[in-house]
């Protein structure tokens, strides 16, 4: 084994000071692991980072908390050299970091686990990890040493993954472990994790936290980026709160609580949505004994469902049990193989996305990037995408840009969307802001039927509360709402009636508070004889 590897092992095992290779300056000095001074970055008129300064001590876990769009990811991308800051400097272990150069960051011992994984799917785990760690001009990859070292690191830090597996075959959790291994393989001493739990199951999250504890015990310093308060409380020593690109607060984790952090993050007390008593009206949309082919999971199997005015029907269930196809069916993008769809008692034969819109179905799609928006088109173009044929936005086949733009401006103002202008490409917006626009687009015509599919997935506290308020307002107005969510807490909070979906079938509905969480959980797991019933 080469001496570098030996040194790295000893370091990882805490036996020895870190190998000198990366640090000609004696690492024993009192310099912090990382020091950011006055970092500013603008994207057009948007101030993504505004004079941010902080230090990361050795062996410390900092949580960087902030809503989507607060500038967390931008800051970390500057740190790692993906972006060049307009102003400010970064020092790692007392040495100034060359801006705009990921190699400099890597050489200084900074490892980053990106929110969107930077893995080549067609290559093996080992190849991904070894990429860039050997001189490019070697005639031969050193495979055995690499493999042994990866296995060692996996074992030491509880990062189980097969080095020979192709990345495309891995689960999301495994891919994240590969990302962490990539950093450790390069002897990272500072690990930055950007929203690491967004894609993980609760069990995987726990495993990640255990790994982080092991890493800290070995002397690594960690920056943990998140907008989830309970995670921040669980893993960090210190919390830095970012809002609108500015550092607005710094707290020792031990001496703060979720409520204070939430207020700091949002800038005001977070108002939880209040649920008024339900006043159900007439049935608006009904599915009668509908079956479909499978799509993103199970297909529907003889499903009946009625949505009533002024009521939120919550659909709980584990992903892949038919929620996707049910949502697609109601949105008009899928058609049933058997069964009937009726709107306000009228049987609809030609069901299509356009028919759904024409019948007053508003759609908040599950995946706002893939289905909900067209990334490279402007905000204006996106907000009229569902209704560009209406006389309000076009006449004789010509678009009315003035009215379209006014509509976009109105939504931006009404929904407090942070965006540089209606002409900005929508993919430049943060998830929360994009979702607000999609919500605005759906709710503007006062729809009678609202399909909200995972409406708050990936959103921060403030945005979640906002979406909930809007849905409840629509309910008060008399809309029939179907809420499909994997977040059981959300379903329990908002729904007047809860139905559980499992293997393409629906449970009987239960009123608010009628079934306990445990009973619902059992239904979700499919442990029940209720499946034979045709619900609602």
């Amino acid at each position, binding site marked *: 084994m080469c001496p570098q590897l030996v040194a790295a092992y000893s370091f990882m095992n805490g036996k020895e000071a870190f190998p000198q290779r990366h640090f000609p300056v004696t690492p024993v000095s009192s310099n912090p692991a990382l020091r950011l001074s006055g970092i500013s970055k603008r994207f057009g008129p948007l101030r993504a980072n505004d004079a941010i300064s902080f230090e990361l001590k050795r062996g410390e876990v900092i949580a960087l908390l902030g809503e989507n769009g607060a500038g967390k990811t931008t800051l970390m*991308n500057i740190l*790692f050299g*993906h*972006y*060049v800051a307009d102003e400010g400097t970064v020092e790692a272990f007392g040495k100034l970091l060359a801006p705009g*150069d*990921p*190699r400099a*960051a*890597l*050489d200084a011992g900074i490892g*980053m686990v*990106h929110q*969107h994984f*930077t*893995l*080549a*799917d*067609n*290559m093996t785990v080992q*190849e*991904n990890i*070894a*990429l*860039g*760690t*050997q*001189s*490019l*001009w*070697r*005639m*031969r*990859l050193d495979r055995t040493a690499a493999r042994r070292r990866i296995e060692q690191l996996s074992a030491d830090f509880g990062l189980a993954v097969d080095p020979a597996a192709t990345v495309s075959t891995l689960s999301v959790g495994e891919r994240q472990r590969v990302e962490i291994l*990539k950093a450790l393989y390069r002897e990272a001493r500072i690990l930055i994790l950007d929203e690491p739990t967004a894609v993980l199951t609760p069990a995987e999250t726990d495993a990640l936290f255990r790994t982080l504890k092991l890493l800290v015990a070995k002397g690594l310093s960690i920056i943990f980026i998140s907008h989830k308060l309970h995670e921040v409380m669980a893993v960090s020593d210190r919390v830095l709160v970012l809002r609108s690109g500015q550092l607005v607060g710094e707290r020792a984790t031990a001496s703060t609580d979720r409520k204070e952090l939430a207020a700091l993050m949002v800038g005001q007390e977070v108002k939880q949505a209040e649920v008024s008593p339900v006043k159900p009206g007439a049935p608006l949309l009904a599915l009668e004994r509908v079956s479909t082919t499978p799509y993103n999971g199970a297909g529907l199997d003889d499903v009946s469902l009625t949505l009533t005015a002024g009521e939120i029907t919550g659909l709980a269930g584990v992903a892949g049990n038919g929620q996707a196809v049910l949502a697609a069916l109601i949105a008009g993008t899928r058609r049933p193989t058997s069964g009937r769809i009726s709107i306000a008692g009228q049987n609809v034969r030609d069901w299509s996305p356009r028919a759904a819109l024409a019948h007053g179905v508003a759609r908040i799609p599950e995946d706002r990037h893939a289905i909900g928006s067209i990334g490279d088109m402007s905000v204006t173009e996106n907000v009229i995408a569902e209704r560009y044929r209406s006389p309000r936005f076009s006449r004789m086949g010509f678009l009315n840009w003035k009215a379209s733009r006014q509509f976009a401006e109105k939504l931006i103002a009404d929904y407090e969307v942070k965006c540089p202008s209606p002409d900005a490409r929508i*993919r*430049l917006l943060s998830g929360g802001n994009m979702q607000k626009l999609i919500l605005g687009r759906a709710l503007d015509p006062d729809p009678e039927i609202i399909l909200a599919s995972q409406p708050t997935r990936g959103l921060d506290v403030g945005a979640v509360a906002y979406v909930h308020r809007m849905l409840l307002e629509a309910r008060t107005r008399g809309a029939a709402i179907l809420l499909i969510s994997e977040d059981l807490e959300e379903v329990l909070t908002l729904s007047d009636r809860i139905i559980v979906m499992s293997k393409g079938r629906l449970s009987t509905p239960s009123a608010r508070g009628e079934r306990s969480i445990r009973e619902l959980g059992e239904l979700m797991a499919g442990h029940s004889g209720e499946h034979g019933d045709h619900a609602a």
Partner: protein
Amino acid sequence: MDALEILFTASFWVAAIRIASPLIFATMGELICERAGVLNLGIEGIMTAGAFAGWFTVYSGGDLWAGVLVAALVGALFGLLHATLTVPLGLSQHVVGIGITLLATSLTYFTYRLVLPEVTSPPKIEPFQPLPIPGLSRIPVVGEALFTQTPLTYLAFVSVAAVAWILYRTPVGLAVRAAGENPSAVEAQGISVTGIRMGAVAVGSALMGVGGAFLTISAFNSFFFQMINGRGWICIALVVFGSWRPGKALVGAILFAAFDAYQVRLQQISGGIVPYQVFLMMPYALSILALILVARRATYPKALMIPYQKGER
């Protein structure tokens, strides 16, 4: 001679391998470019330029291997032009590629007319001669087909092994494959995506240049207009046929060349009953069929044709 008997004659397979050689070079070149994420439609023009550059070097008194080298250099130069426009500037790879083909082809014909204003029939050179490998060339049919070729054909086979080795066994090959799949993975590991992609396009284009030169200094002995005759485009299809793998692409190149050699022989024995154009069409029709059958499930390099802009979200 019977139509089936042809398949068992050594001369048929010798011809097939000869026809395959330029395709092999150029296909390997295109494969490298595409594996790095750049579709190089300049291939047809780069082959034309290589064909002329190689031939002209020998015609002006240079060594045959000097001709190969010059062809590679000219190819690399056009490749660098292509890469500069498509990689750091991020222009459309389709448009740039077609532009490079038109530019390289026209520039070649123009240069030909400049340096040889008076000739009416293309001047000839002394091309590479077959170099039978002792022992191996005596194996019936297979040995004759593979081992009585010119040195440049042997080099074509060596290039397949080299490309396969580099892509799968070396650190730079890892970087090339990653650049075509997810360039951000390359950047996150501290390697310049621009550098990798430009390098890949330059090297790939050099191979295309050599592929062109094979025609003028090994297969034939002179340069004439239109001699590339769509071979570049065939190579684009061969890369897809080979699912971006060097070995499979080699099989594809030989298969296509065999169809081509076969149709010439069929023309001779058909006695003029069937129009010869039908036979000419055969290899192309069969290629389309093969593509439909084999390459339908091919997985593209995911970042193919997508320009990479550092720091873009």
